[in-house]
């Protein structure tokens, strides 16, 4: 895994609540057996019409969204299906973080394992971000802070171990594998 710390980017604002993982990547694109190239299907039914042409009014198709790697979305982002294809598609498209007031549990877990930072902020900070699409924002994983467009810094919660893994560029499986003795001891107790 790549080390992750500072992300500075302009934002893309998607002011919709309860964006579910079926919108982030529709189920018909889950027949792949690898995770390569899923970015082309990100938000497929919002980005493209029935003929596959880009819908010009959707924010990701607008010129001002080009190059942005921070998504600002409405409350309860990533709800629904557990598909890890959702953060895979976001990362493959070029996003590195999402900022919302709340983020669904499974999506948040999946994101942290893919170097995609789920950032939850209070309603007032969120309102500032919604009101300033395209503004430049900095996220620091090390400091657990978001620097808002007006320069104010707010902290966000992040699981300490997930943060450690992001900063060091190590993955959780390595850690679990290193606990072999404890797992074996637990299994020995189970079989008694």
């Amino acid at each position, binding site marked *: 895994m790549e080390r992750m710390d500072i992300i500075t980017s302009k934002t893309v604002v998607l002011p919709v609540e309860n964006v579910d993982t079926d919108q982030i990547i*529709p189920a018909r694109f889950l027949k792949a057996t690898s995770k390569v190239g899923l970015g082309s299907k990100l938000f497929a039914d919002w980005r493209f019409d029935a003929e596959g042409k880009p819908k010009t009014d959707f924010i990701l198709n607008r010129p001002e969204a080009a190059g942005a790697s921070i998504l600002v979305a409405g409350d309860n982002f990533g709800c629904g299906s557990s598909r890890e294809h959702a953060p895979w598609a976001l990362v493959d498209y070029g996003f590195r973080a999402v900022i919302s007031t709340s983020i669904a549990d499974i999506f948040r877990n999946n994101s942290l394992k893919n170097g995609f930072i789920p950032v939850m902020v209070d309603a007032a900070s969120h309102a500032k971000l919604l009101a300033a699409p395209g503004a430049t924002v900095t996220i620091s994983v090390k400091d657990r802070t978001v620097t808002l467009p007006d320069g104010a810094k707010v902290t966000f919660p992040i699981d*300490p171990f997930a943060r450690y893994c992001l900063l060091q560029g190590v993955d959780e499986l390595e850690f679990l594998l290193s606990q072999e003795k404890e797992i074996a001891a637990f299994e020995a107790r189970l079989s008694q």
Partner: protein
Amino acid sequence: MKSQPRTMFEKIWEAHLVRPATDDTPAILYVDLHLVHEVTSPQAFTWLRERGLKVRRPERTVATMDHSTPTTPRGRDGKIPILDNAAAAQIATLEKNCAEFGIELHALGTDGQGIVHVIGPEMGLTQPGEVIVCGDSHTSTHGAFGALAFGIGTSEVSHVLATQSLLQQPPKTLAVTVEGQLRPGVTAKDIILAVIARLGIGGGTGHVIEYRGSAIRALSMEERMTVCNMSIEAGARAGMIAPDETTFAYLKGRPRAPQGAAWDRAVAAWRKLPSDEGATFDREEKFDASTLEPMITYGTNPGMGIAISADIPAPSNATAAKALAYMGLTGEKRLAGHKVDVVFIGSCTNSRLSDLRAAATVFKGRKVADGVRTLVVPGSQAIKKAAEAEGLDRVFTEAGAEWREAGCSMCIAMNGDQLKPGQYAVSTSNRNFEGRQGAGGRTFLASPLTAAAAAVTGRVTDARELI
């Protein structure tokens, strides 16, 4: 000294701690049963191969194929034809992975195949007190047996395959207490749709729900599975119900349930699982079952549900207005009477024998309305066989419905069963997200009774008018 009263969740959690959480690291939780399907596992097996790892406990791992599998009738050769090359490749990949890593697989076309959350309980693999995971958010279904069961992502699938363990932060607990008696024609599906309508789609985030109260205790195991299944639709990763005589009667004699003296020991242990008197939950929500009505959703998330006789609420914000626009509906009007193009009876929520029997009470002696397509899709090959043995398939086909092979079918629309753009469906599945049942399709979630009533009238109908 008497120990602190504990919830069922706390008992199961503590019994599975390989290592408790520290300030720096999450808890390591041991997994008793890992269920695997074709869609969320291929990348996990690839990573194992890349790192030269084995599956630590193949005997605790069981696979089937359900999401991308077609449900179209078998050909003359007795095989289910797979016309989609990508689906065929994914199915072949699971077969290869299971063969290589030594995992029990219930493949397409075999007697044990079915929706992963249907076959686990059916085989007796799902047992009280277990930690059960699967790369699927509806793993919460298994909580109906007093298990801690939750969905995981593909990275976590690889963690469990390699170590039989998961890193977890302890969730909070939420008691959903449902007291009183349901009125005739009101079902387990209506209970859970009413719960989600009150909690909202994110209302249970960060929590494990325990469903309690006299209305829950009165439910059969199949009904309890319907309730726990949709816990994730309120944002809760897991839902659970204390095991009792209903649970033990369901499990006794199932092929993978303990037998003989081991059965008696298991039941004695399971009796200790329910939450202790005086155990505290982080939060509680109370419901009165006697006031519940048949429920139906009108919007684009499962929290947007109403009693079938009620008006569609006026949109309260831009997101709600967007949902109504997608659905082609207007607020402050009744949904009952709205036209329906397709009816889907199936999915891990409502594809079990009792669901099919309920639907059949409506179909018997009636015909599917002109212009309505109706699919009835059993949750497993075993259910298909049992339904056919009691003639349910003929009730459906004589009414003009399609009787299919087992699978997820139109719940997820990645297997050929899907809505056309703009079509309206009454569906017994669990999600009404935009495009969930096919791009541009529009879903009303409801019980098997309500779905069957819509099929025979061609309109959103209160089934109590027909039964």
